[in-house]
């Protein structure tokens, strides 16, 4: 075998190495810089009653979940049954952040599919979403009693994610106090 015929193969292997490394750099794999930081404060009108407001501070003293959702978001449909199960088991309060949505559409959506949220707040212009570094909908944040974000789940919550990650972390945070 002549060496010069191996050149294309060698070049390709180097290239493949870089490509493989490039995959590791996937921007969405960057760990959220918000984890272990205090949850950004907000005060927003609730979906059910526009004249009452809810903020992150009101949840102090409890371990809770903040779920970013919207009626236009198809993946939210995917995680919805999982959230309904979470709500039925009354594990922790589940606050919905209704992101860039309209009130009537959001209410109609919850009526059609069931409402897993303890409360939903309205983030119509997505400003709170920016504070929370929301890439896309849905995303879910786990926040501890001191109001510190402990975990961020990107994309639809699956039963596996609840069983293997969320529930153990919740149990740990509940014990920690």
């Amino acid at each position, binding site marked *: *075998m*002549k060496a010069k*015929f*191996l050149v*294309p*193969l060698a070049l*390709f*292997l180097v*290239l*493949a190495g*870089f*490509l*493989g*490394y*490039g*995959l590791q*750099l*996937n921007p*969405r*794999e960057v760990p959220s810089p918000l984890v272990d930081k205090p949850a950004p404060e907000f005060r927003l009108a609730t979906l059910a009653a526009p004249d009452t407001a809810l903020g992150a501070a009101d949840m102090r003293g409890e371990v809770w979940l903040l779920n970013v959702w919207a009626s*236009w978001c*198809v993946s939210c*449909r*995917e995680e919805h049954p999982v959230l309904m199960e979470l709500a039925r088991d009354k594990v922790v309060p589940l606050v919905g952040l209704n992101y860039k949505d309209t009130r009537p559409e959001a209410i109609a959506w919850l009526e*059609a*599919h069931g409402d897993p949220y303890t409360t939903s707040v309205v983030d119509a212009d997505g400003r709170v979403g920016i504070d929370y570094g929301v890439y896309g909908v849905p995303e879910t944040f786990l926040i501890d009693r001191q109001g510190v974000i402990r975990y961020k789940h990107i994309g639809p919550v699956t039963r596996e994610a609840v069983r293997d990650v969320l529930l153990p972390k919740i149990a740990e945070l509940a014990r920690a106090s």
Partner: protein
Amino acid sequence: MIPELGHFSLILALVLALVQAIVPMVGANRNRIALMAVGRPAAQGQFLAIAFAFGCLTWAFLTSDFSLQLAAVNSHTDTPLIYKITGVWGNHEGSLLLWALSLSLWTVAVTVFSRNLPDAFMARVLGVLGWISAGFLSFTLITSNPFDRLLPAVAQGRDLNPLLQDAGMIIHPPLLYMGYVGFSVAFAFAIAALLSGRMDAAWARWSRPWTTVAWVFLTAGIAVGSGWAYYELGWGGWWFWDPVENASFMPWLLGTALIHSLAVTEKRGAFRSWTILLAISAFSLSLLGTFLVRSGVITSVHAFATDPRRGLFILALLVVVIGVSLTLFAWRAPKLSGGGSFGLVSRDATLLGNNVLLAVATGSVLLGTLYPLFLDALNLGKISVGPPYFEAVFVPLMTPVVVLMVLGPFVRWKGDGVGRVLRPLLPVMVASIAIGLGVAFAVGHVTVRTVLGLVLASWVLLGSARLLASRFAERRGASAAAVLRGIPAAWWGMWLAHVGIGIFIIGATMAGSLNERLDVKMQPGQTAQLAGYTFTFRGVADAPGPNYDAARATIDVTRSGIPVATLHPEKRFYVAQQMPMTEASIDIGPFRDVYVNLGDRLDDGSWVVGLFYKPFISWVWLGCLLMAVGGVFAASDRRYRRLAEREAPAGAARRTT
């Protein structure tokens, strides 16, 4: 129910692909005709299964079955019918299915049109294609199943990305994929040649029409894509050197090299290992293009939602396919000895020069496309490589290609005299330089780029005219009709494609250096001047469409008081996607386009309007069209059909002995 049938059919296709991949290969190695014969029905069955799955998916889109996740995300009941259909491949999963469909279509075409290949060779070709198909079908089924359900169903879908709701997007992806995937046939022929050790002139003659047809599809696909970018992205550019564009351009460049290298291998038996390497590389770049687009390692204006698992799978596929074939190449290619020798002034040498230049140009595009990734991987910072890099490298590399391209057909195979070649071309050379400089002065734009472009374009067009004239000179006395009829289709194909390059260069040069642009604020009744045209803004009215709301402007264009056109650019708002879109309006002319887009509405009721004057821009696509037509001529040459007839008894004879 129908999506489940589609899913099942796709699994069946994977099983058939595996049968096609394994059984004929084993048959070829053990010389068992019965096993080799399995390839053909397996390939045809696989095509039917994939076509059925594709039909099921299309059905779900047509009937707005939003219990199918893909339809829910990419369609809407108000989406116009044609975009419901194109929505099928306007997404990751559906476009993979389209990839698999075109691969199986090519495979079936091989089983139908290359009936006369020796059995063992055909078995190996089908086996290779079967492996590729099996890889892509499992990728589709494992990571990107288009038939995933969304239960319970949503009442309304999210609609197709408005950018993709455009006439160009109806045919661009199918053409591009037919081109991309078409190189798999040349690839399979190359691998079969390496496996069997059969690498002769006959092999090159079998591969040529397949390669040319794939190249035609790719040319047309790239041209349509660039046309789409021209009027849909709203700022009148037609090529951005975007990674996704480069992903289709690199296989095109190597495919062009391959077509010419195959010509040498067929005629002279030379460049054999180089031809094989090009066939492998052209298809490898098609796969790499798929990887770049689908894995999201490279950021691009074409945003596809990405998934690292998918990227890993494609990378693995890439490594297996390319790695195995290059290893095979390193092992078998040294046995392919040289072929005939040739002089420095010979057609062989000009084609070799062009091949090397095209390969280097491909390398420079590849480097520019991947360089940001390399730097990022080595932690040297985030960069982007923009059009200036590509232009600075590509134009100087292509200049000698264009010069050689005209010389080539005048030079004899094997060896020729410098004087004999240059005698007819000296006047052409002088005339091209004179015309290039003259036109540049006449239009008042004397830059290196403009003069170079015009000189090269004249060189190609005048040189092609001279070439045709020499055909007449060779048969002095014969009637013009007889001369023309005597020219084989392959020659016409070459001639048309080369003329197409000349036309293309005129378009790219003129549109690049003489275009004018004006962004201006306009109130109803106001006028603006650009390039001798007067634009009068008549106002804006509501013009709702099936799935969008729109503000539609009316702009009258006149030149010296004579009406030229009335243009209606729109600002659309797609309701389901909550996305604004600018829809440009263009008056297309043979020597210039007048292009208008509508920007934002300002608080005082006026609008921002973008006015563009683009001289000769349609020549860019006219040139591409001529190249594609040239390819069709070349592939339809009688020689290939006669060959099929001649090979048949030979193949039969081999079988009996």
